[in-house]
């Protein structure tokens, strides 16, 4: 039973996640309107949750994420000091490193759960909230990193390399969006969508890795994208064939892939041209 002043957990979690997303807006806009936007989103959450429960929240998140992506871009463009390509690439490199760390910690937190099927916030509440925060954040940051990789190396890796990074980034956004309801609802197709998106992130990276081996767009370690991307698809393929992905192999592959992503982020962060990046 929810008291008058007691906020349902999905509402407080959603409001917290939205406050994190607000960091993507230009600082002036965020400082001026961020608290009021968070308050408005909280009001929307309460209304949706009371009216339609978790499905209402899910619909609200879908609309809000669309609004978020469109208006973040719009506010940066209207500021007329849209983040330079160099700054974006450098930040996306940091994002990749942080995202890899968040992903490892998020999946490590799943090991602390005694049951994957109990409702959010039960006896495994700490581990569940850790996953809810870390896994979507990790996927989002890695996706930004892949966009940075594409911006920096896409043109020099040919059509195949460029498109595969685009596929990887698009899959990342799909996976990120699905990861939020995955941990809130603990039901539905979200696990498959999240993992399918994650798989395609790494498939895209592996294909980019093939192009990188041939065209060598990276300053060094051109085999790294392939080594990073290939482990996860192999694990899932073997897992499907043998009907198990392995209690030991799974975490090792996740660690391997995340370390690879982290190193790629490190490489990208340090390989941003000082001069304005050529346009066109």
């Amino acid at each position, binding site marked *: 039973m929810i008291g008058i002043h007691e906020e349902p957990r999905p509402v407080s979690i959603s409001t917290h996640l939205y406050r994190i997303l607000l960091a993507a*807006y230009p600082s002036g806009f965020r400082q001026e309107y961020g608290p009021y936007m968070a308050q408005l989103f909280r009001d*929307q959450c309460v209304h949706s949750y009371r009216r339609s429960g978790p499905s209402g929240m899910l619909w609200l998140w879908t609309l809000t994420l669309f609004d978020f992506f469109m*208006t973040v871009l719009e506010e940066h463009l209207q500021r007329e000091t849209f983040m330079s390509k160099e700054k974006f690439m450098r930040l996306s490199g940091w994002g990749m490193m942080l995202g890899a760390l968040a992903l490892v910690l998020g999946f490590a937190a799943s090991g602390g759960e005694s049951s994957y099927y109990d409702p959010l916030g039960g006896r495994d509440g700490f581990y569940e909230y850790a996953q809810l925060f870390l896994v979507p954040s990790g996927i989002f940051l890695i996706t930004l990193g892949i966009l940075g990789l594409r911006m920096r190396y896409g043109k020099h890796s040919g059509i195949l390399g460029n498109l595969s990074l685009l596929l990887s980034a698009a899959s990342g956004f799909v996976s990120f969006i699905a990861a939020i309801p995955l941990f809130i609802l603990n039901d539905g197709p979200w696990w498959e969508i999240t993992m399918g998106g994650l798989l395609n992130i790494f498939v895209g990276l592996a294909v980019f890795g093939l192009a990188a081996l041939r065209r060598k767009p990276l300053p060094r370690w051109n085999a790294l994208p392939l080594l990073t991307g290939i482990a996860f698809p192999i694990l899932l393929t073997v897992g499907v064939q043998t009907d198990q992905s392995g209690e030991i192999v799974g975490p090792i592959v996740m660690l391997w892939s995340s370390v690879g992503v982290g190193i790629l982020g490190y490489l990208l962060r340090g390989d941003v041209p000082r001069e304005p990046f050529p346009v066109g």
Partner: protein
Amino acid sequence: MAKMMKTPEDLLPLTPAVFNILLALADGEKHGYGIMLEVEENTNGQMQMGPGTLYGSIKRMLKAGLVEETDERPDPELDDQRRRYYRATGMGQRVLRLEAERLAGQVALARAKDLLAGIAGGGA
């Protein structure tokens, strides 16, 4: 003053978001959530503004002098210090009236071309 002042006509046509926010503020000051609810109700749920669209529009409307922040509260008992209230300025009201007239003209044109036949209120 070197700064060029914009006339209400310069701001037309309005975007659907700006028009609906001004329409929501036509009968008094409201906070962001109040504006959002009224827009949703006025458009039968066809326009659902997210926080980014609402506050992005408000930012531009403040800059254009269409709305202003207000310290007045419609009902002090329901006041919430976490909220910011807005109201339409005189300029905002003029722009809203002009835009409504412009839209009415478009509807009249559609009616004259018999495009609204069969729609409630659309008969000649």
